[in-house]
């Protein structure tokens, strides 16, 4: 299964020069990365949720949203 979107997002996170290149010419960078049309649309939207949906479509498993609870309350009974 292709991980093109995942790999590109890793690369853009690791390499500021690559990120600059993407900001100047996003179509070129996305094409070179092998992104599908749907993935390119999600990336261009700059919407985190759209990108997450594309990652799921790529086969990434999205861990359920977990939030950090209120330990200071020391509540032990489940809701």
């Amino acid at each position: 299964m292709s991980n093109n979107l995942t790999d590109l997002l890793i690369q853009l996170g690791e390499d500021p020069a690559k990120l600059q290149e993407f900001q100047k010419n996003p179509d070129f960078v996305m094409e070179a990365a092998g992104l599908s049309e749907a993935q390119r649309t999600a990336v261009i939207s700059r919407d985190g949720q759209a990108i997450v949906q594309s990652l799921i479509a790529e086969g990434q498993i999205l861990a359920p949203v977990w939030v950090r609870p209120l330990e200071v309350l020391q509540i032990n009974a489940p809701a």
Partner: protein
Amino acid sequence: MQTEQVEASAGKKRGSLVIVGTGIRSVAQTTIEARGHMENAEKLYFLVAEPVTEAWIRKLNVTAEPLQDCYAEGKLRIESYREMVRRVLDPVRQGKNVCWALYGHPGVFVYPSHEAIRQAREEGFSATMLPGVSAEDCLFADLGVDPALHGCQSYEATDFLVQKRTIDPTSDLILWQVGIIGEITYKTADFHKKEGLRLLVDLLREYYPPDHPVVLYEASQYAVTDPVIQRLTLEELASSNPPGISTLYVPSLPSRPLDREILEQLGLMPA
């Protein structure tokens, strides 16, 4: 300082624990020292919020193991944490250099990381936490807030309510997790509690007018995305629908006049 470091490492058992943060923006906000520890650990554990960071971590170190499965629907949170601490400390006790990576800052609103450090040190192991980029740090940058200007009070939203925290409205206020007020267990579905927001707004109305501007904020998770910044009034907050990870920023009211007596005692009165 050097003497303290030598003394600290002397007499330590073989096996160590370093806890690091991966920041909020995937990959990009991991510090150089954190990445180094993640790459070189003999055993790496991680607990992160999205799949790109997970994929990156798995590439950094083949021993990487997620701790997400410690959580379960309806399971007591404290039980999940105890399991995390046990799993992380097991290889430390076997003499391995262990690294645990958590998203954001590993010590901000995180119980098991501090507990793991405490237990490891109590058992005679070297244990260190390295700071990471938190959602609050991203908020300061994205909203242009300098917490030193008027001071900054920071509370978890449910704690703020149930502890009836008193605040200084002439100082900035940050409330974490306003989208899950009253939620104390792990849930897989999105959740929203209108009554919690209404209670929060009612309490904040004791300090601020209903048209006081506030901001619902979510930090950007990827290098190519924007933060979510929703500007509204305090009264509008009651009917809003913030995601669980949302942070509320309440800017300060105008400052009070300076205290002349204190100014004089500090020698700060103008000539």
